[in-house]
């Protein structure tokens, strides 16, 4: 994070010319004045979006964040200023040619209702003149990537899908021609909270692989903190109140506006920033194989300092929690104790883990890998320790910030 963060602070527009630069999208003095209005909706917005990062535009409604986003693919034509993408000034090129290189996801999704999911996803590849076999293979690949079985969904129509599934298709459609840049306008805004969290997590996992450059609009600071590598907090006329990493915005708000906008509960919000894998969770908890003799398991628990033993199946997937008294019942091991619940993966945030923990019966979360195999145990103490560490780091940060130029990047 540090090297990327340093890269953009001092880069002038001229230095960004040419491909291979760390800046992917360069907005220079971008201005939009709608006819019949006095004040510009967007006033000389200058912002650089580093290659492979998610930059979130967040701000109160009417601040111009959506207008700013829609000027990047010129759905809204800028009044003045310029847009440079990957070193090429695209302010005046054919907008349709520009848009075919930019994936576009909007809140209302806008799937074409009259054609199948396959044809929806194939839209841009068709416009680009790909051959049929290549399109077909690409559609299957993408549906797979967004977690929809191509066999089931390829020939369905949008109205036959749930809101969450439609948004997955929307993402697949935006990714179809493998554009280096994605624009996302409140993509998860119209989806129920549970599905939204799942889609956000899936999307982050996908982004870790794809490394797209993404401009992302939301009005929800929590979503911004979760999704953004960097956040631009915008106020009226798209003036930038602060453009920084989520950590920095939470620990060092640039002004009162940012402070108010971030609101209370900054500590809880920071739990969304820390990942389970970054925490020192317990990896030596007592485990056993579910097919081991119960006497062996009982003795092992009895002789240990643990109050429960976690049983795993042959693939290492957690199955059941057994406590001492459970062995008194005369039932097969597979029916003793409690079923193992509250699984989290390494990339889950501590906030997610905390939630799982509170919902699960055992008061702990089980950390698993992406195949569901056991890695370790995370308990509430681990989270409290981590919050303590953050607080200490903040104090450190503030001391350091007083010593050096506050505009410098000091994160982490």
């Amino acid at each position, binding site marked *: 994070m540090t090297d990327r963060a340093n890269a953009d602070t001092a880069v002038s527009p001229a230095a960004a010319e040419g491909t291979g630069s760390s800046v992917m999208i360069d907005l220079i003095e971008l201005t939009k004045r709608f006819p019949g209005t006095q*004040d*510009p909706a967007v*006033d*000389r917005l200058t912002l650089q979006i580093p290659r492979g990062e998610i930059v979130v535009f967040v701000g109160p409604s009417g601040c111009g964040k959506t207008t700013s986003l829609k000027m990047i693919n010129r759905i809204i034509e800028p009044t003045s200023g310029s847009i440079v993408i990957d070193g090429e000034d695209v302010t005046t090129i054919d907008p349709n040619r520009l848009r075919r290189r930019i994936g576009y996801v909007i809140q209302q999704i806008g799937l074409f209702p009259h054609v199948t999911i396959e044809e929806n996803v194939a839209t841009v590849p068709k416009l680009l003149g790909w051959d049929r076999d290549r399109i077909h293979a690409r559609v299957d690949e993408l549906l797979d990537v967004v977690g929809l079985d191509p066999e089931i969904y390829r020939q369905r129509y949008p109205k036959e899908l749930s809101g969450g599934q439609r948004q997955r298709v929307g993402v697949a459609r935006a990714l179809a021609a493998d554009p280096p840049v994605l624009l996302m306008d409140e993509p998860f805004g119209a989806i129920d909270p549970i599905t939204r969290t799942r889609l956000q997590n899936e999307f982050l996992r996908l982004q870790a692989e794809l490394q797209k450059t993404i401009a992302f609009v939301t009005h929800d600071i929590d979503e911004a903190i979760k999704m953004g590598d960097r956040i631009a907090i915008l106020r009226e*006329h798209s*003036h*930038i*109140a602060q453009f920084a990493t989520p950590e920095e915005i939470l620990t060092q708000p640039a002004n009162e506006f940012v402070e108010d906008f971030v609101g209370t509960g900054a500590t809880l919000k920071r739990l969304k920033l820390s990942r389970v894998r970054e925490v020192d969770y317990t990896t030596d908890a007592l485990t056993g194989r579910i097919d081991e003799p119960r006497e062996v398991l009982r003795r092992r628990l009895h002789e240990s300092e643990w109050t429960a033993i976690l049983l795993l199946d042959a693939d290492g997937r957690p199955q059941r929690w057994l406590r001492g008294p459970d062995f008194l019942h005369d039932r097969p091991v597979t029916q003793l104790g409690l079923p193992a619940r509250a699984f989290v993966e390494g990339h889950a945030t501590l906030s997610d883990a905390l939630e799982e923990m509170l919902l699960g019966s055992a008061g702990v979360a089980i950390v698993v890998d992406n195949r569901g195999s056991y890695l370790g145990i995370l308990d509430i103490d681990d989270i409290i320790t981590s919050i303590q560490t953050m607080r200490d780091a903040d104090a450190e940060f503030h001391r350091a910030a007083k010593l050096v130029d506050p505009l410098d990047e000091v994160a982490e």
Partner: protein
Amino acid sequence: MTPPSRTPETLDEARSRADTEDAAARRRARRAALVHYLGMPVVLAGVLLALYLYVGGQELDSIEARTLTADNLIGQTRQHIVLTVYSTFFVLLLAIPMGIVATRPATRRFAPAIIGLGNAGQAIPSLGMLALLFYVFRTTPGLPSTGTVPVVVSLVGYSFLPILRNTMVGLDQVDRFVLEAGRGMGMSNGLVLRRLELPLAVPVILAGVRTALVLNVGTATLAFLFGGGGLGQTIFSGFQLRRTPVLLTGAVLVAVLALLVDYLAGLIEEKLSPKGL
């Protein structure tokens, strides 16, 4: 971030610019209103003038001269208007109350059937329907067989279904949430009807008046076939006698009358509709 720089403008400049813009907007609005209110009458007057000049410039033969007398034309126009007004009055008198009754909660289940009948009724040609209704009058002993009455009844019979249907569809579209809110506040069905539905239905009724007028002024053109007179007579004479001036005079007068009726009904609709809707 610095505030956007604007070209400095003195207060006076700003005020005078605003004044000019205002004045321009007002002028535009006035011109639009002028076109809106006077456009149609001016066009119709122009058409009548052109007709007058055209017919006046023709050497009319004796047949034409006999048909195109002022008495004749004025009489037919009067008949046409009388037929239109009577048939509109009676069809509204029948169709609107029936439409209201047929959309009550108790009778609502019949509504789709009636609307469906109204839709199917559109397939019946006006000529055939009028003729059949008139035939019933001519051949049923005890009913008047000539004059205005059978023609008006036929016109009413023809326009009844469409007007009923429009009324019902219109009432049905009165915002259900508004009605539900009314009931939710404890208003009785009768109160909901009087306080909410009828006021909201005023535009529907006004639209019905306009539709009925336009429909009837058109069908009244066929009244001459059944001894009801009207301007259709002049058109038909002109056709049968192969006299273009007569044909055109009848056709232009009918067209102007219909457009004028539509225009006036439109004005009334606009003036009487509740402002908030």
